[in-house]
Structures are given as structure tokens and as C-alpha cells.
């Protein structure tokens, strides 16, 4: 008990962390509404928000920036939470849906939908994204249970990269073969929240909301799972059912986020790691906080992308790759050679 107390006192308390996370999220939301090719003041943003009266400020806020802001929030929450789930499921600190090929599975499936079935809108290829993400998630999980030694953390990432490369090559063969698919695909594949519209957001929102609820339901059991299968079983956790539930949740979250925003990597890797440093290892805390911090990271990446390449924009997927890859390198260099 004293150890537990010491642990708690070293870390930031949950209510403080929640308030801080929510504040940061609101801050980035306002920034995301305010910053762009036409910068608005805070007052103009608030006016535009409250009075949807057709004035220029309200048009910019509601029609141009609100859809991408909402999408960044929804996709960021989905990716960050699925990163936490994936790391808990595989007991591997390097697991991440982008790195492990889940997003690539969704992308491959979506391209087949575009090319073979003529799908053009997000809600049309949503189901294909679920199918691809689910297949890839199951596959990655099967790989991870075959290898349980500590040194195999890296091996799982390699398998994911290989899966990504193989699926990516198949995806590209299709897009090269089909020029019209290539033209829409090359914008989608970078991972962007721009030009997606409210209908895209609302078509994926129910799935992501359901996924988040499922993730929070799993939270307490994930703590038990971290102790190992035998411990978890002896604590009364139905391990197999939990795994199936977690894989289904990852599929929902990643499939929906990928269908709406394209494959975006590293959000699911960076957010849980940063949160573990700040808030400790309790999966419940990490899950709740990552649903706040993931959106903040996506919004920040999107805003940075709008700022550094003016008058053009840098897609959010490019920015997250440049923010996330150094974190991966730092994580690798920090770990002692086994």
C-alpha cells in the first residue's frame, strides 16, 4: 500500500491530468479554427461559432475549418486509443497500428473498393476499411503470440513493416493499373483531414464512439492482462474473450479513422509513451487521457502543417511521421541492448 501511495504521489493526479488534457484540447481546437490562410482572432472565432449568420467569419469557421477540426479530433482519439490497446494486447511497447500494418490493411482494402467496386465516398468504403483493418489486426496478433521473448519486440515491428511493404506494393500495383483510382488515392494515402466534409465525419463518428466505449470497458481488464495470462485468468479475467473484444475495438477504431483520414502513422505510438511518462502505467488512466491527448496531437500536427508550408499546406500524415519517427528512434536508443 505504501508503494502504491508513493507511486501515486510521484505522478500527476488523474483529475489534474484530465483538466489539463481537456484544456489543451480546447486550446488546440480554437487554434485549429483560427489559423489558416486567413487568420482569425479569438473574438472572430467565437462570433463565427455562435452566430452562424453567413458572415465571412462564420463561413470560414463552420464550413472550412470545423469539419477538418472535428475529423482531426475523432481520428486522433481513435488512433491514440487503438495504440494503447495494441500495446496492451501484444505486451509490446513498440506496437502501433500504423507501424504494424493495420492501417495498410485498411488502405489495401479501400483501394480495392475504389478500383474494383467504384466506391468514391468515405462512407462507401468504410466497410472495406473495417475488413482490411480487422484482417491485418488478427494477423499481427497471431504473429505476436508465436513469439513471446522480450527481444521479439523488434521482430514484431519488422513483421509489421514487411506486411505494410507487401500490402503497400499490392496497393500501388492496383493504383498504377487504374489511373483514376491513382488520382484520388495519392491524396488519400498521405493521411489528411482537409477537404473531407461533415458527412465523412458523421459517417465514421458512430463507429469511433462505439470503439471508444468498448476500449474504456476493457480498461480494467487490460491492467490484469499486463500481469500475464495466468495472473489475469486467476484474477477472473476471461482472457480469450478480452482479446477478441480488443481486436474488434482496434478494428473499429483504425478502420474508421483510416477510411476517413487515410493511413496516419505514429499517433498511436507517441501518445501512449508520452502519457506513461507523465501519468504512470494504469491502463484506465492512459486510455482516458489518450482520448484527449491524441486529438490534441492531431490538431497540433494539422495546424503546424498549415503554418509551415504557406500558402500551401502540409498533410497531417506527413507532419505526424516527422514528429513520430524521432520518438521511435529515441525509444530505440534509450533501450539498452538486450
Amino acid at each position, binding site marked *: 500500500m505504501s508503494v502504491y501511495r508513493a507511486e501515486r504521489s510521484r505522478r500527476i493526479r488523474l483529475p489534474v491530468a484530465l483538466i489539463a488534457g481537456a484544456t489543451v484540447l480546447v486550446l488546440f481546437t480554437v487554434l485549429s479554427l483560427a489559423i489558416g490562410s486567413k487568420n482569425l482572432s479569438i473574438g472572430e472565432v467565437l462570433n463565427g461559432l455562435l452566430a452562424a449568420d453567413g458572415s465571412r467569419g462564420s463561413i470560414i469557421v463552420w464550413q472550412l475549418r470545423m469539419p477538418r477540426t472535428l475529423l482531426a479530433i475523432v481520428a486522433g482519439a481513435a488512433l491514440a486509443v487503438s495504440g494503447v490497446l495494441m500495446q496492451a494486447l501484444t505486451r509490446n511497447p513498440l506496437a502501433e497500428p500504423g*507501424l504494424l500494418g493495420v492501417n495498410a490493411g485498411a488502405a489495401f482494402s479501400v483501394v480495392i473498393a475504389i478500383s474494383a467496386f467504384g466506391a468514391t465516398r468515405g462512407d462507401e468504403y468504410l466497410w472495406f476499411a473495417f475488413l482490411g483493418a480487422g484482417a491485418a489486426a488478427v494477423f499481427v496478433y497471431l*504473429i505476436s503470440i*508465436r*513469439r513471446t521473448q522480450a*527481444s521479439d519486440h*523488434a*521482430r514484431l*515491428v*519488422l*513483421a509489421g*513493416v*514487411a*506486411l*505494410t*511493404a*507487401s*500490402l*503497400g*506494393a*499490392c496497393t*500501388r*500495383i492496383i493504383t*498504377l*493499373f487504374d*489511373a483514376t483510382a*491513382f*488520382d484520388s488515392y*495519392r*491524396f488519400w*494515402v*498521405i493521411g489528411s483531414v482537409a477537404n473531407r466534409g461533415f458527412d465523412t465525419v458523421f459517417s465514421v463518428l458512430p463507429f469511433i464512439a462505439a470503439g471508444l466505449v468498448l476500449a474504456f470497458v476493457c480498461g480494467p481488464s487490460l491492467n490484469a492482462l499486463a500481469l500475464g495470462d495466468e495472473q489475469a485468468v486467476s484474477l477472473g479475467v476471461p482472457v480469450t474473450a478480452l482479446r477478441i473484444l480488443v481486436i474488434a475495438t482496434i478494428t473499429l477504431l483504425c478502420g474508421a479513422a483510416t477510411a476517413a483520414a487515410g493511413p496516419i*502513422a*505514429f499517433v498511436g505510438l507517441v501518445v501512449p509513451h508520452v502519457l506513461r511518462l507523465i501519468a504512470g502505467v494504469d491502463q484506465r488512466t492512459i486510455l482516458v487521457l489518450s482520448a484527449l491527448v491524441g486529438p490534441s496531437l492531431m490538431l497540433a500536427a494539422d495546424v503546424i502543417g498549415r503554418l509551415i508550408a504557406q500558402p*500551401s499546406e*502540409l*498533410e497531417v*500524415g*506527413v507532419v505526424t*511521421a*516527422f514528429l*513520430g*519517427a*524521432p520518438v*521511435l*528512434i529515441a525509444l*530505440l*536508443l534509450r533501450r539498452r*541492448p*538486450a
Partner: protein
Amino acid sequence: MSGFGRRSLPPGYFRFRMPGGTALLVHRRSAVVAAALFLVALAVAVVEIATGDYTITPTGALNALVGGGSDLDRFIVVDQRLPRAAAALLVGAALGASGAIFQSVSRNPLGSPDIIGFTTGAATGGLTVILLVGASTATTILVGTLVGGFATAAVVIALALRRGATGDRLVLSGIAVAAMLAATNDYLVSRADIENAEVAKAWQYGSLNAISWPPLLPLAVVLAFALPAALLASRSLRVLELGDDTAAAVGLRVARTRTVALALGVCLAAIAVATAGPIGFLALAAPQLARRVARSPGVTVLASTAMGAALLVSADLLAQRLLSPFQIPVGLVTAAIGGAYLVWMLALAPASGSRSGRT
């Protein structure tokens, strides 16, 4: 000395005497496998030359090769199919040998130029030239490719060296850097207008579709020097695989051997990428497949070279004919098959432990 040598030959090996008094210890099965693979590669190349959309009889193709037949026959066979088949053989051989050297030096089956970011960096360099500089002649693309590849390899190796370049660290640093560069590549392609994007996408995945005689000359010249050098170096590489301490104890100059071998490996990979674009996963898969077929205890340069040539020429045939008349860039065929092979090697193959783990 001679009696000593005869008796101490390990089982399954023979001695290949070379002019000048030196001798190579050759793994018998590897040599047989290499010879067989070269024959397979040549046979596939002959199929590639003799068949295709333009119908020509085998005798007609042979006739065109020696200068007979109609102008069109000669154009198709000598200027279209022959350089393509030759390029597939040579690029494949270069990548196979390069992969064998990298895997041997890093003592890791994953230490290939693809994984440590060389090919992705080369693609970024080439794309930058095609899309941003706008002066996309063969020479400028070549320079961009080489600068991109070498810069990336240098960064990855520097990152990994900071705490002892163990295999996995090298590989994971390569993956992280390659992820950034891949995002950059996608960004560059999305920023271009559609014509430039079409040019870039055909090149960026590695393709032999539009190859002609001129780029083959530098490739052949480099290979003429680098391949024999790589075969000679394989003797020292086998010793180096025992570990730095052991290798030094039996009299190998470790640092010099490693530098020379890496320079050769980078050289071979660079000329291959410069000729055909970044062809993925061949340098990774060829040495491992060759090792399994030859059942040799380590990576062998000779068998890997033959395997590389055979694999690339087969992949090119597939790329040409699979969705004909559409021509798939051969790099995508190798990436799709090679990536699947790597997944299998990492995850589904039984944990052999021999060389699949870190050493």
C-alpha cells in the same frame, strides 16, 4: 603445406586454386546451386527475349540477334528485349551480392540496403530531382539518387552506431528514418501535377520497363570490377562472421575488411538503384533464399548473386506479362513477394535460431 590443406578440408567443401598461389574454400553445394541458378536465370532471360506481345519465332529472334531479319525484328529483339533482360540479370546480380555483403557484415539477415533505408533515401533523392529541381535528365536523376541513398545510409548507420550497431538497432533506426522519407515521397508525389506524378511514380518503385543500352554501360563496368572483388572478399567475410574478436585473433584486419566490404556493398546497391530505380526487398530475400537452397552455414556471395539474377529476371517476366499490356514496375512485384517472404521468415517460420536471431 599441401598435405595439411588436403586433410583439413571440412566435409562438403572443395578447394578452388587461383593463379597467384591463393585458394578459395568453396562450399560444394553452394557452387552447384549457383551454377544451376545461373542456368535458370539465363533460361528465363531467353524466354523474355524470345516471347512477348510482338510475335517472333525462336529462329527469327536468333536471326535478329546476329544481325539478320527485318528492321522491326532487330529493333524489338536487340534494342527492346535484350537490354531489358540483360539489365534484369545484372541489376539482380548486383543486388544479390550487395545484400549478401550487408547481411554478412551486420551478421543479421535483415541488414539489407532496403531495410537500412538506402533504397527509400535513393527514391527521395530521385523524386526531389524529378519533381522539385525540374531538370530530370538521366544524369541529374542519377546524382539525386546516389546523394539521397548515401545520405540516408550515413544517417541510419550514425544513429545505430551511437550505442554499438547491433543488428536490430540498425534495422529499427532504418525503419524509423524510412518512415519519414516515405511520408516525404508521398508528399512530393501529391504536390506534383499529374503528368510529373505519373513519371515519378513509374520511376519511384523501380522499373525496367523503359531501359535501353546507354545506362547498361556504367552498370556493366562497375559490376566487372565489383563482383569479382565481392567474391574475393567473401573469404574474409566468412571469418568476420565469427565475431570481431575471433576474426582478429585468427589474423584478420577487422576494420579494414569491414570498410572494404561495406564500400563494395554500397557501390553495388548504388549502381543497381541508379540503373533501375529502388527495387525493394531483392537484396534482402536473395541471400536468405540462396542460403536455404544451398544449405550453407552462412551467407554466400556467389550463390546470392546467382539467386538475385534469377529472381529479378523472373520477377521482371511476371511484371511484364501478369497484367499485360499494362507493365507493372518490377520493384512492386519484388516488394509484394519479398515483403510476404519477410513476414514468413520473421513470424511463421520455426524459430531456427541459427542466424535469425541477433548474434
